[in-house]
């Protein structure tokens, strides 16, 4: 345990090796990591966590590389967790996201770590949230999480990130892709990369139209509550400003936050949709705008108090999942796995039904 305390001190002091090793312990779920993580808990919560997600080949790694460069120009320290899939058969993985980011390898203000999914579905690895907290405590201002190339329902990133950037590219399919539920709903900032390719403008239009339709239909969206809270804040702020406690012409905090984020729905000046930014990551085109949008989303979350409520929601979800895992491991402990196969056999043989089996397990749990 003393070693863990030392390790947490080293992580906080910015020791790269100690940070890297603690993340390895997190990845292999080494029980001795817990002492260090507990010691770091008090220092977690300062980093802004940004998720970059989108289909394979959308250019997520190149975008991440350019976002890192831009944040470094602004003097921010940045950590990247880049997730790639493990083979479901051999357990091996090729983690190649780093190729696009190696220019930052020798920059002390950048830490890049590749993670394999190790069987986890949902676009991330199980280690991501703990690893993100380690990097947060290590003093990075931003933790950027690049998901695996996702399809339509790998949305775990919303449970971890404060700001989700959803990356699309031209040429993926017809416009029905943009109205499907799932991945397309999770963006706080939308990015259409490879905007120099044919069809990019159409993708931008389709995403805008999808978002506008959701707002006009009154659908529950991820962004509407934030925009409403921010609008209310702006009104409040405007009222106070007319009282004269602000220099004429100076933007308020809320206005600063609102400067970029969101575009009005045509014909409905009070309805807003998230920004859709066209980029060419390879050349750097549009990257300043994209980073500005990420920063104004962060500012809006902070100004409205939504950062806190989003994190609360996400933590509650993570606790639920952690509890389920503990229950499962309690049930599998001490030869109970045997009884789980016994139960499965009994269900297959029609001696009991599935729900009887569940009740048996529940009773076993309350006894333990």
């Amino acid at each position, binding site marked *: 345990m003393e070693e863990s305390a030392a390790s947490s001190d080293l992580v906080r002091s910015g020791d790269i090796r100690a940070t890297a090793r603690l993340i390895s312990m997190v990845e292999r779920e080494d029980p001795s990591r817990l002492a260090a993580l507990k010691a770091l808990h008090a220092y977690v919560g300062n980093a802004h966590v940004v998720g970059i997600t989108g289909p394979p080949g959308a250019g997520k790694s190149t975008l991440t590389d350019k976002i890192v460069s831009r944040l470094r120009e602004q003097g921010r320290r940045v950590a990247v967790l880049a997730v790639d899939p493990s083979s479901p058969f051999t*357990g*091996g993985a090729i*983690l190649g996201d*780093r*190729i696009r980011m190696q220019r930052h390898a*020798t920059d002390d203000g950048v830490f890049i*770590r590749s993670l394999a999914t190790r069987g986890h579905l949902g676009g991330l690895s199980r280690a991501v949230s703990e690893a993100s907290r380690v990097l947060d405590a290590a003093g990075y201002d931003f933790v950027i999480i690049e998901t695996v190339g996702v399809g339509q329902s790998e949305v775990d990133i919303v449970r971890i990130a404060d700001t989700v950037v959803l990356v699309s590219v031209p040429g993926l399919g017809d416009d029905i892709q943009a109205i499907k539920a799932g991945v397309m709903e999770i963006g706080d900032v939308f990015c259409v990369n490879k905007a120099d390719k044919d069809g990019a403008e159409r993708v931008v239009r389709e995403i805008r139209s999808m978002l506008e339709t959701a707002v006009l239909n009154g659908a529950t969206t991820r962004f509407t509550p934030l925009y409403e809270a921010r609008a209310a804040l702006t009104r409040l702020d405007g009222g106070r400003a007319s009282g004269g406690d602000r220099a004429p012409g100076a933007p308020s905090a809320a206005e600063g936050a609102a400067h970029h984020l969101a575009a009005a729905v045509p014909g409905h000046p009070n309805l807003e949709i998230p920004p859709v930014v066209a980029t060419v990551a390879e050349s750097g085109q549009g990257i300043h705008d994209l980073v500005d949008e990420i920063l104004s989303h962060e500012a809006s979350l902070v100004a409205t108090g939504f950062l806190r409520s989003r994190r609360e929601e996400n933590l509650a979800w993570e606790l639920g999942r952690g509890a389920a895992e503990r229950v499962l491991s309690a049930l599998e402990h001490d030869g109970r796995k045997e009884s789980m196969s016994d139960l499965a056999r009994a269900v297959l043989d029609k001696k009991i039904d599935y729900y009887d089996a569940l009740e048996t397990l529940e009773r076993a749990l309350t006894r333990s």
Partner: protein
Amino acid sequence: MERKIRVLVAKPGLDGHDRGAKVIARALRDAGMEVIYTGLRQTPEQIVSAAVQEDVDVVAMSILSGAHNHLFPRVMDLLREKGVDDVLVIGGGVIPDDDIPGLKAAGIAGVFTPGTPTTETIEFIKNNLKRGD
């Protein structure tokens, strides 16, 4: 959880292609290892920095250009400077037999020249890891 072997596959120097490195990366993956691939034209500084951040068990480098006598020992020096002494470092590529003893003396644990079956490299890695925690 079972311990995964993490390997950094790196191409130091100015080689124009990385076919060989990709073949070995793929073979290591198929052997169940996690392979971090960093691409072409890496400096020793970039390689060592990536090895530390990725907390790898193995650094596998490949050079075709003939600069191995300079670049491989340089990587070893930088690792030592950072206090990293538990990473297995191996090298491959076009390396004359006469150069191998010198590279081994510099700390390159194994040198694999063209034609070496990938299974041999995999066995070597599994049998020579420097850490098992």
